[in-house]
């Protein structure tokens, strides 16, 4: 029982980071109707920059600077790349290919500048896990969860309770109408990309202190984040958070209990190393979910113009 609780909590904590990346995807998708397949690569690139900054700077300063760099990278990419694709050509394959191009650009920059070897990432709260009646919670995970939650909350407040958020939502809903209402929509697009990539950057810095920093660190995370966003129907922040946490829990439980489940079902084979299936089972669930409910678990059924 303690182990179940332990695994559930660990999974939920880790899953919150998928929600952060997913939230970045949602913000960008809402504003520009583009799903950014380069999200993870951009986040990793920024994390490497933050890492090199952290060699010289104290953690809070490096973290903050990293977030700012991420924001700037996102805004610049919107300005220099995304906006150059004429609106009427943002259909079919083009957006996907552009973002895959971005993926390669940033992946290449990461490997070219920093090389492929893993680096340890500084942890702000190093120390032994916290013991709560037999349930051990790693400080890094807890920190990750706290920051993720704070970020989700901040974004929620921004979008629901500020004028800027209102204007961003209006821009996402109808760009021409927003422009005619006096909203400088191109700046809003830059802002949305900045926010989206800032999410990716923060997620990267959080993940890097939990795992270790490699150029491919976030490949799988992109799929999970995307899935978390889809759970929320690509427009719901709460849905994305729930989706991310559920995925994390699923992964964590698979890693421990898959063998038991197989035995319990009397399947004609054995699973010796269930942790190898952590990602696989989650990926299978994602594929099935997408095929059965493409509009997401919480999403309203409607035409998605993505």
């Amino acid at each position, binding site marked *: 029982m303690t182990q179940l609780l332990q695994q559930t909590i660990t999974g939920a904590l880790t899953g919150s980071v998928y929600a952060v990346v997913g939230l970045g995807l949602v913000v960008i998708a809402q504003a520009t109707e583009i799903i950014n397949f380069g999200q993870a690569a951009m986040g990793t690139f920024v994390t490497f920059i933050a890492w090199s900054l952290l060699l010289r700077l104290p953690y809070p300063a490096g973290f903050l600077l990293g977030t700012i760099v991420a924001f700037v990278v996102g805004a610049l990419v919107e300005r220099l790349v995304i906006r*150059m694709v004429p609106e009427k050509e943002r259909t079919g*394959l083009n957006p996907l290919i552009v973002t895959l191009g971005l*993926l390669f650009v940033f*992946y290449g920059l990461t490997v070219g500048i920093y*090389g492929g070897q893993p680096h340890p990432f500084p942890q702000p709260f190093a120390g032994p896990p916290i013991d709560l009646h037999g349930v051990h919670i790693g400080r890094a995970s807890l920190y990750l969860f706290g920051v993720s939650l704070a970020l989700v909350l901040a974004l929620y407040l921004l979008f629901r309770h500020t004028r800027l958020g209102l204007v961003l939502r209006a821009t996402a809903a109808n760009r021409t109408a927003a422009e005619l209402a006096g909203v400088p929509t191109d700046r809003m697009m830059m802002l949305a990309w900045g926010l989206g990539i800032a999410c990716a950057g923060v997620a990267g810095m959080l993940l890097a202190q939990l795992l270790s920093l490699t150029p491919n660190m976030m490949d799988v995370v992109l799929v999970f984040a995307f899935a978390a966003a889809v759970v929320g129907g690509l427009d719901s922040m709460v849905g994305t958070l729930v989706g991310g946490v559920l995925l994390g829990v699923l992964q964590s439980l698979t890693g421990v209990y898959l063998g038991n489940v197989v035995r319990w079902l009397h399947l004609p084979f054995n*699973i010796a190393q269930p942790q190898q299936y952590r990602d696989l089972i989650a990926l299978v669930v994602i*594929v099935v979910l997408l095929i059965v409910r493409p509009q997401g678990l919480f999403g309203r059924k409607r035409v998605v113009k993505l």
Partner: protein
Amino acid sequence: MKRAAWATASVIPTPVELLALIVGLWFAVYVAGPRAGLAVGAVGAAVMLASWRRTRRGAQAGRGVSSARLGWAIGAALFAVVLPGVAKSTFAVSLMDRALVVSLIVLSLNLVTGYTGQISIGHAALLGIGAYAAAIATGQGHLSIVLAVAIGAAATAAVGLLIGVPALRLRGHYLGLVTLAITVAFPEVLQVHELEKYTGSFNGLSEFSRAFGPPVSWHWLTSERWHYFVGLLVLLVAIWLVSNLVRSAAGRALTATRDDENAATAMGVDIALVKISAFVVSAALAGVAGGLWFLLNNRSVAPDGFTLTQSIEFLLAMVIGGRASILGSILGGFFLVYIYQQGVQAFSSAFQSGSRNWADVLVVALITVLVLLWFSRRSVLPRTTRSFMARPASPVTRAGLVTGAVVVAAVIAVGVLAGLRFITSTFLNVVALQPAFAGAAVLLVVLAMPGGLAGFTRDLDALSWAEVGEWLHGRIVPGGVGADEQTRGVSRERERVSSG
């Protein structure tokens, strides 16, 4: 019209002919060394050039072009058959072989993604399934290689069906996500403990000892050349298959579904069937390519050959080569092998050792000039630079502006990189930057060259020296030639769609 007549009447090659000549010669010399390469390349290019002009003249006069076709065949054969025969090394041959197999996989991807618009980021996994099926069938199943490749194709076709049916429910990015998930999962599946005895986990499978040799022993027919010719045959069959598919009624419907699904439904086309069959045929071709891949790599397969990176490389190659185009698939395959993989390596080693190959530099410079010219003709630049400027300027100043912007961006980038290098005290690895070049190339293609290399050659076809002169003297009127060219591009696009 006037331009074309002038071009055919003159002995001076038109810009596109010049470009083709230079690229052809350069390629031949690259593969076969200076003497043999020059000979084969010159003859091949001359024959192709002659038949090219004959074809154009014939088309103008409304005559048949059968003798010109023969010329084309001879010219192509010189490049495709004789060139590997006189290649300077076995490495050069195996590189050509690799380009063929990559062309095949890009062609397969083009069928499903370029023609029907169903996004697949999963082709590396399909390639891998074909390769692993072939490896397991020959290794553990002790089957003949032909049978093994067939099994691989059948296996991937089944997987294609498995993806194709649910793919009907998914639009755009969702299909992208599903295929992305498959790509990410595939190498992990291969390394699962329970499958280790079949897949060999992260080491993969290899049987270097049993090379796939030619059936007759003849010293000229080395196993590389044998591989190459088998690959060539397979590619030709695949091209024949795909071009028939694409030109058939179902094929035209395929393209129609990409452009407008509602219209296609109204036409009474069974979209579902067309889409699924595109997936199945594409997967089967990818499976065959996988079998060839297995042979190409000395009968070995490993999980790290079929990752997300490869999937994206294929997609990028398809876009750079040209979407919904057979020529584009081949150009894309050759781009991936010669420019992306070999070229960048050669560039960086030349960069590091300080020795520069002047022929290469010249080719690059010429291509750059032509690309710039083409940019100014297509009036793409005003579109992309519009937001920088309040009023449209002349194309030349626009080109200058963009060149300036690129230079500034490069300087900034180098500055930033140098700064980062200072902080981390690591060195910039040019070879590792490779993906960044490919990514940048793709961004450029999407922004300015929607037809890819194949479309580029088509556009260049209409360029004359007179215009080159005008461009050099900055006398092309804003909107004039460019606008004309753009509408011409559109109508050409239409023609291509309607003729399949």
